[in-house]
């Protein structure tokens, strides 16, 4: 059998696994792999400016295409710089494979130059990780790594390859997929759970579908089945931040997002429901609010591919461990087989109409400043009018919540945001990754003035690969979300939440060869957005918005869904220590 070097084996595996794009950054411990990628005919390497950028690009690529994101970084600082993105992918269940270089095996443990214990550091922020000590093992490991990253509950997998293993040779034949005998995610539901779920749905008077990122991960088919189930039952649908787009925001049955910055109707409907069907969501504290007041009079069904999500936070009556798509398929089939008819939900819907009438997302405008909500709403209508496929990413903060509230998503995989980890610095590289995977789509990052500076260096990456991403900064000159919490909790003592010494974003963009646009006030908003959309290359927009706006509705941490603050007049400015201690 012909022998190949470890580096060539790795690249051959990537080709065999259908990898088209690798986001990476070279260094001593990965030079052999970089040489194997030199002028590669099918694998495109995207050179980032910081390894964290590579990980978020891979996430953006993965979330928008459904394919795993691939990252290549060097040992030591290359690997440690990737840790935030790896953790982000773990929290949000994003399929990602990160190849890290390592010092040669004989130097491991000697504090060699650029040695870091990558396996130790990433052990608990990966779904699984490997140190490969022989080129003969490499192909098997790489194939298994992709399998583990993409099946079951997806997540990041690290493959750490010492430099001598990249250079040494071994006989190579395309490996059979050998997976740990212990790895067998359950994708098909037990019949009993499906049966119980169908009967409970058929009997519920106040049902609600509470959906999450699992629907997106399960694939577009799952989103289609969710729509079918909603149509069959007539139940209202709400979603977590991660699940937006799985159910169309334009549907009459859509209540908007639930949770801390969810709508009044979504949170009240959760609170008053007699049946909660949780589909691929995990009862995160941002969603539940105070636990003993969460959907208190409901029975609960939980569909999740990860058994450890079940009863972790909220005890449920029926647990369905399965892939969301497969479980929904089973539920719909049984519903039809039993010839169940829609329950009359008129009364339930009329109560919901009452909550909707509070118009909890409304905001006051003063004609002088751009309200950030208005900027998002205008961006939404302008992008919709282009008729293009639109992919939105966000950074983390108020702008992220406003985007979730005021931008409507009608399809899955079009909304990319850092939910679980809440990583400032995610959105801009994620937009670059999404654009790599979707060259014809309109990829826009909705950013905050503070967050965008966390990976601003990636302006250069977009320029280099001529990626026409749009970076739309809602510039309120504050870490707005921090300021908002300081108003809620610390009597408006703005400790270090002012964005001092901001750069001139327009000039900064121009320095990288981007088009820069500044939107100063309400009169420029429409034209500025239009100009951004009509400009072919990458565009950075410094949209000056009201500095002191806060994001409502809001359930302060530790409060119940029914204790929503709807507007600033309800903010007291002080909090008990118990409430302060919650995140």
């Amino acid at each position: 059998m012909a022998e190949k070097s470890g580096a060539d084996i790795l690249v051959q595996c990537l080709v065999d696994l259908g990898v088209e794009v690798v986001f990476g950054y070279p260094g001593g411990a990965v030079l052999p792999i970089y040489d194997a990628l030199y002028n590669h005919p099918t694998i495109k390497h995207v050179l980032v400016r910081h390894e964290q950028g590579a990980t978020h690009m891979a996430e953006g690529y993965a979330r928008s295409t459904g394919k795993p994101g691939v990252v290549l970084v060097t040992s030591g600082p290359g690997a440690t710089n990737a840790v935030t993105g790896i953790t982000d992918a773990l929290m949000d269940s994003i399929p990602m494979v990160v190849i890290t270089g390592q010092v040669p095996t004989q130097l491991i443990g000697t504090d060699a130059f650029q040695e870091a214990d990558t396996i130790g550091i990433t052990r608990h922020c990966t779904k699984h990780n490997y140190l490969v000590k022989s080129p003969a093992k490499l192909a098997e490991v790489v194939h298994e790594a992709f399998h583990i990253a993409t099946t079951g509950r997806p997540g990041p997998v690290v493959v750490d390859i010492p430099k001598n293993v990249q250079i040494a040779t071994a006989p190579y034949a395309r490996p059979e997929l050998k997976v740990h005998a212990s790895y067998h995610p359950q994708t098909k539901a037990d019949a009993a759970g499906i049966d119980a779920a169908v009967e409970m749905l058929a009997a519920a008077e106040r049902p609600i579908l509470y959906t999450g990122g699992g629907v997106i991960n399960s694939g577009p088919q799952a989103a289609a089945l969710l729509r079918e189930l909603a149509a069959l039952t007539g139940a209202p649908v709400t979603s977590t931040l991660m699940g937006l787009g799985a159910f169309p925001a334009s549907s009459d049955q859509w209540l908007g997002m639930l949770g801390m910055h969810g709508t009044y109707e979504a949170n009240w409907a959760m609170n008053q429901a007699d049946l909660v069907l949780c589909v691929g969501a995990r009862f995160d504290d941002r969603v539940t609010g105070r636990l003993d007041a969460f959907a208190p009079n409901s029975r609960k069904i939980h569909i999740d591919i990860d058994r450890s999500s079940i009863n972790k936070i909220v005890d449920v009556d029926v647990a369905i461990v399965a892939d969301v798509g497969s479980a929904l398929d089973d539920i719909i089939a049984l519903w039809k087989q039993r010839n169940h008819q829609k329950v009359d939900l008129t009364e339930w819907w009329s109560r919901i109409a009452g909550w909707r009438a509070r118009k909890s997302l409304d905001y006051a405008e003063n004609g002088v400043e751009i309200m950030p909500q208005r900027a998002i709403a205008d961006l939404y209508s302008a992008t919709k009018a282009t008729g293009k496929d639109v992919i939105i990413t966000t950074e983390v903060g108020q702008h992220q919540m406003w985007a979730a509230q005021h931008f409507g998503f009608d399809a899955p995989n079009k909304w990319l945001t850092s939910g679980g980890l809440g990583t400032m610095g995610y959105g801009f590289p994620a937009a670059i990754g999404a654009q790599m995977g979707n060259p014809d789509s309109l990829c826009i990052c909705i950013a905050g003035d503070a967050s965008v500076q966390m990976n601003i260096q990636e302006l250069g990456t977009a320029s280099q690969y001529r990626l026409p991403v749009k970076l739309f900064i809602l510039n309120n000159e504050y870490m707005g979300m921090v300021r908002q919490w300081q108003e809620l909790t610390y009597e408006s003592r703005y400790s270090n939440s002012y964005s001092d010494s901001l750069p001139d974003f327009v000039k900064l963009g121009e320095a990288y060869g981007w088009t820069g646009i500044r939107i100063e006030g309400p009169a420029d908003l429409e034209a500025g957005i239009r100009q951004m959309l009509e400009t072919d290359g990458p565009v950075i927009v410094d949209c000056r918005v009201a500095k002191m706006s806060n994001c409502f509705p809001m359930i302060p941490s530790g409060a119940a869904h029914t204790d929503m603050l709807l507007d600033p007049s309800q903010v007291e400015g002080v909090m008990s220590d118990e409430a302060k201690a919650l995140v």
Partner: protein
Amino acid sequence: MHIQEELSQRHVLSLTVSNEAGILARIAGLFTARGYNIDSLTVADITQDHGVSRITIVTNGPPKVIDQIIAQLDRLVPVHKVTDLTENGPFVERELALVKVAGTGEDRIEALRLADVFRAKVVDTTIESFIFEITGTTDKIDNFVGLMRQIGLVEVGRTGVVGLIRGKDAN
């Protein structure tokens, strides 16, 4: 504000895992990362080809946390099976301890007498000391060590618990 603690129960968990580099760190790290308790942990390979190890973990926590621990362990790629021996019907658990006691005269005789009651074996002796080997449940060993403390305990080494379900079947 004060931080409240929940009531906890002791559980003995038995895991079979692929015998590969880092597996122990993966498991121990899961406990620290998620704030679970480890009272004891033992590990040794148990198959002829050295491919599979058994890990026995004694932990404690409220029932909900115990369920989470099991689900979280089960989620690790190299973990084959997790059994909660405490929940799973009758099982045998044993721990081995080496107990060094020093003393002379009446103390020395009393130590030997107690060792006999507990079926502890003398595995080392000098004129002024013994090392006893004792096996049994954690409680039994605790009791023995407690008595020896009153006589002249020098030091103790314990293995931690191993356990198997009773009856003819493998779990």
